[in-house]
């Protein structure tokens, strides 16, 4: 835990702290805006601004946590200059992807299109599409929860990586 705090201190208390804050704000805002539309997308069957009408407070919080959390991980990783940061990046990207799956794969034509692309017959498509797509509908909350855990984990890993490789700011003499 101490290493995590050291990582934060090195990134957000060092000489390049303004750049770090700017990166978190800019990247976090873009990603949050994206997830504000993406998380309720399954309610409207795809990525559409209409989905904003179905945004709940808990989804909005999750979108902000994913967006700014991932931006935080990226900023910490940038501070660590990619040293030992691969795990953090993979976990963070995995988290972002998992949150996008329900809105992308449930109630859109992606799954039947993929089945058709792999040469599935009409009866197979009609009997299989629901089996796959319904998983994303039924376990949507679990996907979002897993994403949040993934992004949180990536922040911790990135902070630890940074603590191991970043130079801490020197206290004023």
């Amino acid at each position: 835990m101490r290493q995590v705090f050291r990582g934060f201190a090195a990134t957000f208390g060092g000489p390049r702290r303004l750049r770090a804050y700017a990166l978190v704000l800019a990247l976090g805002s873009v990603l949050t805006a994206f997830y504000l539309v993406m998380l309720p997308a399954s309610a409207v069957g795809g990525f559409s601004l209409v989905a904003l009408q179905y945004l709940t407070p808990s989804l909005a919080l999750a979108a902000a946590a994913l967006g700014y959390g991932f931006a935080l991980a990226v900023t910490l990783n940038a501070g660590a200059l990619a040293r030992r940061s691969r795990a953090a990046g993979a976990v963070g990207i995995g988290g972002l992807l998992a949150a996008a799956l329900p809105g992308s794969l449930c109630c859109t034509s992606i799954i039947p299109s993929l089945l058709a692309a792999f040469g599935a017959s009409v009866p197979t498509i009609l009997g299989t599409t629901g089996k796959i797509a319904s998983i994303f509908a039924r376990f949507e909350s679990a996907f979002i929860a897993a994403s949040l855990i993934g992004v949180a984990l990536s922040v911790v890993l990135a902070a630890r990586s940074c603590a191991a490789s970043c130079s801490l700011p020197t206290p004023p003499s």
Partner: protein
Amino acid sequence: MKLLWSIALATVLPFAGTTAPARAAAPAVGQPAPAFTYRLLDGHQLAPGALRGHPYLLWMVATWCPSCQTGSTVVGSHIAFLRAHGVRVVEMELAGDLGAPGPALASFQKQVGKNAAAANWYWGELTQAQTAVLDPHGDMDVYYLVDGHGKIVAVSGNPAVTWDAIARFAAAAH
């Protein structure tokens, strides 16, 4: 490299729209709508003759599909408008919910509220053969707009998003 693929996938997936590429032949715009007799939830049958001369929305849903539920709520909030324009709604559950049986259609219908019982709204279930003809792509939440002559004038999906097109169809049908 794996990270790059992941980012590419994350970028592309959300924007993959709801329009499937051309594959098996589904009824197309300009063609007559298939003259099926539909099995309704109340045990009655909806014969082609009952729809003849009336514009209607033929809509295929799965009961576990969130966008179908949202779309039903949106259509429910406009059902009086559709009725005023002489438009009927034929909302049909896809056979076997495309391989993943969801809640009963009756409980799905219940979530729409009392508007679901409107006289111009028919609820029923497609047979496997009807599903294969009307939805050979296996898409969910797709619909046909059929004019008073029984001709398909539009094929689309997700009424929660495309309500304006349905409203225009209804206004033109009047």
